């Protein structure tokens, strides 16, 4: 049952090899750079740049190796496993399916609940799974709609006693506090809890199988599924959707192998054992003000580490198909979400040394921090490179004025720099290309429109992600700087739905990037013209950030190509039944009769209680 498990010895072996290789690659890159820099004698700037190269390359290598390890352990599923048809032993325990909401449009959210409930009912297990809509909505008009649509949902599904709605009077602790409040009041009624997000959607068979797996392993405290992004329509959204569906399983498998029993929790589409979670995951409020103090923002990583500290297994089973979420449709929405995650991850710097944590949990915190500060290393490298040229000593062609007949020319080690650049690009491209080739060879590409479409999508995704990388780098840099300056991001609602951005909006959001790119390129051209060519791949996307953001937020217009459409994913070619059911319900609920919903008297048991 589940993905092929690896022993602790394998996990530790793989971790060691990955770490040693990554450090080795980082040090080699640093040494190569020093050779390049030694042509005119080693300056302080060369040592600084070498250190930055070591850190950046280590980080790239770590990601690449994780993907390659995952590829090695990945199993291509050729036929649908029995559990996806609901086959398997009965589940004894009762599960609460928690749907935290916060100002989201209620109808699509509750239509998802209806679809998941129908999916569970089709397996005849709906009585073992209760839904709790846990609202932290602050907007009264949205809350009123939540209540209306919830009553509609309960009536339509005949779910009295199986579906509950609760809205907190205030929302301390945000999502983590919302979930904690549920456990403190009602946790004792359930054995397991499936924690979702407002945009989560899961097949009944997947939910059932997760409950089976948690029940089958008494040490399993948390089981994380790998949610696939669905319903993306924009160029950016579809590229992300393809990436999450095509590349992520290999990276997740690599992560799973290396994490062993200390797996990840991504905050949603995961099932917890209530006893384990309640005993281990009561989060303290950190002293001081946000961003570093206050409630823990990226609570999921912390909860995973606390479960592991208490001796529970936290596991990622990436083979669990039928787990979905939605993603941002444009770069600006992505950056907003990233800003929140950045603050949460940097806040973990206070928790790295928390008592009793497993070493791997500490490493995960460090990784999360590195994910946001690594771009700063590249930025630092570019800035130091400009400084290096400005500060470089004049070449001395006659270092020995008395015993030298012919001039001495410094070594030109440009070849070393080119080797280094090729190596770094290799680390970026190799895992994805390998995943693409493996998919074409193994038949996995069939779900992505066939071998040629999957390879085409892979190449375009690589090009696209290279173009948007400098724009993302700037947003990330700003996020880190804001956090370090003590600015709190708050808790903005995720934008879900059409995210098309006109040039005006894109310009407003990214003109500072365009100006930075322009000023940077002009300065470099003025100060050190030879560097301009090297900086163009970064400078040009920055200069055209508004155009890139606006263009990528629009639909691609490739719909006519059907299965051969760029970035085709299995969820488009053969949508999961729960996705189809959700769309069907959404269509039915969107039909012009919401007034009827609003005016129908609530069933007696559905009385709204202000307690």
């Amino acid at each position, binding site marked *: 049952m589940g993905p092929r498990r690896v022993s602790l010895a394998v996990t530790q072996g793989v971790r060691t090899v990955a770490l040693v290789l990554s450090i080795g690659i980082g040090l080699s890159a640093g040494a190569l750079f020093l050779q390049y820099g030694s042509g005119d004698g080693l300056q302080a700037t060369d040592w600084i740049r070498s250190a930055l190269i070591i850190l950046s390359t280590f980080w790239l290598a770590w990601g690449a190796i994780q993907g390659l390890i995952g590829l090695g352990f990945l199993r291509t599923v050729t036929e649908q496993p029995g559990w996806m048809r609901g086959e398997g032993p009965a589940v004894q325990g009762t599960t609460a399916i928690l749907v935290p909401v916060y100002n989201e449009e209620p109808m699509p959210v509750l239509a998802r609940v209806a679809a998941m409930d129908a999916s569970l009912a089709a397996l005849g297990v709906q009585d073992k799974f209760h839904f709790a809509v846990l*609202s932290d909505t602050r907007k009264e008009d949205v809350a009123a709609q939540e209540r209306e649509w919830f009553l509609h949902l309960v009536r339509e599904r005949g779910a009295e006693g199986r579906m509950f709605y609760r809205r907190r009077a205030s929302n301390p602790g945000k999502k983590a506090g919302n979930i904690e409040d549920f456990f*403190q009041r009602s946790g004792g009624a359930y054995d397991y809890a499936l924690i979702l997000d407002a945009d989560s959607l899961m097949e009944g068979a997947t939910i059932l199988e997760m409950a089976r797996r948690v029940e089958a392993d008494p040490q399993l405290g948390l089981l994380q599924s790998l949610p696939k992004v669905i319903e993306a329509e924009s160029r950016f959204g579809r590229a992300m959707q393809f990436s999450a569906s095509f590349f992520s399983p290999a990276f997740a498998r690599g992560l799973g192998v290396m994490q062993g029993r200390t797996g990840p929790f991504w905050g949603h589409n995961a099932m917890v054992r209530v006893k384990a979670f309640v005993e281990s995951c009561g989060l303290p409020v950190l002293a001081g003000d946000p961003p570093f103090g206050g409630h823990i923002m990226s609570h999921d990583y912390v909860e995973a580490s606390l479960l592991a500290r208490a001796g529970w297994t936290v596991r990622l089973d990436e083979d669990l198909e039928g787990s979905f979420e939605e993603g941002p449709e444009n770069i600006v929405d992505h950056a907003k979400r990233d800003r929140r995650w950045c603050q949460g991850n940097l806040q973990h710097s206070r928790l790295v040394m928390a008592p009793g944590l497993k070493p791997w949990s500490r490493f995960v915190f460090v990784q999360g921090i590195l994910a946001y500060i690594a771009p700063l290393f590249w930025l630092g490298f570019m800035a130091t490179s400009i400084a290096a040229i400005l500060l470089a000593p004049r070449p001395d062609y006659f270092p020995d004025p008395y015993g030298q007949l012919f001039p001495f020319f410094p070594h030109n080690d440009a070849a070393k720099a080119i080797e280094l650049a090729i190596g770094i690009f290799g680390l970026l491209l190799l895992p994805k290309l390998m995943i693409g080739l493996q998919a074409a060879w193994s038949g996995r590409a069939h779900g992505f429109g066939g071998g040629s479409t999957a390879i085409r999508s892979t190449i375009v995704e690589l090009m696209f992600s290279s173009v948007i990388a400098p724009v993302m780098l700037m947003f990330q840099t700003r996020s880190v700087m804001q956090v370090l300056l003590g600015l709190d991001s708050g808790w903005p609602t995720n934008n879900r739905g059409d995210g098309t951005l006109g040039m005006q909006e894109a310009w407003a959001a990214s003109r500072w990037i365009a100006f930075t790119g322009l000023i940077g390129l002009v300065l470099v051209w003025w100060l050190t013209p030879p560097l301009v060519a090297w900086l163009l791949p970064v400078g040009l996307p920055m200069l055209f950030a508004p155009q890139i953001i606006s263009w990528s937020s629009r639909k691609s217009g490739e719909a006519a190509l059907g299965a051969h459409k760029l970035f085709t994913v299995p969820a488009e070619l053969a949508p999961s039944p729960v996705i189809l059911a959700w769309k069907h319900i959404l269509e039915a609920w969107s039909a012009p009769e919401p007034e009827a919903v609003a005016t129908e008297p609530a069933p007696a048991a559905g*009385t709204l209680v202000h307690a």
Partner: protein
Amino acid sequence: MTVEGNVVKSDAELVGESLFALPVAPMVMPTQVLERQHSIVARIASMFGGARVGKAGN
């Protein structure tokens, strides 16, 4: 407890609003210790507003 149409209000506890009230089955969720009282990190953090040291148990 007050009643306004379909809305029943209770002053008992600040639960908020509920429809089809959730089962009452309380559990104690002990607050976990995440910062060492005398660690270097806690001391540095205390310079920026103090590091709270949690105690096991509510």
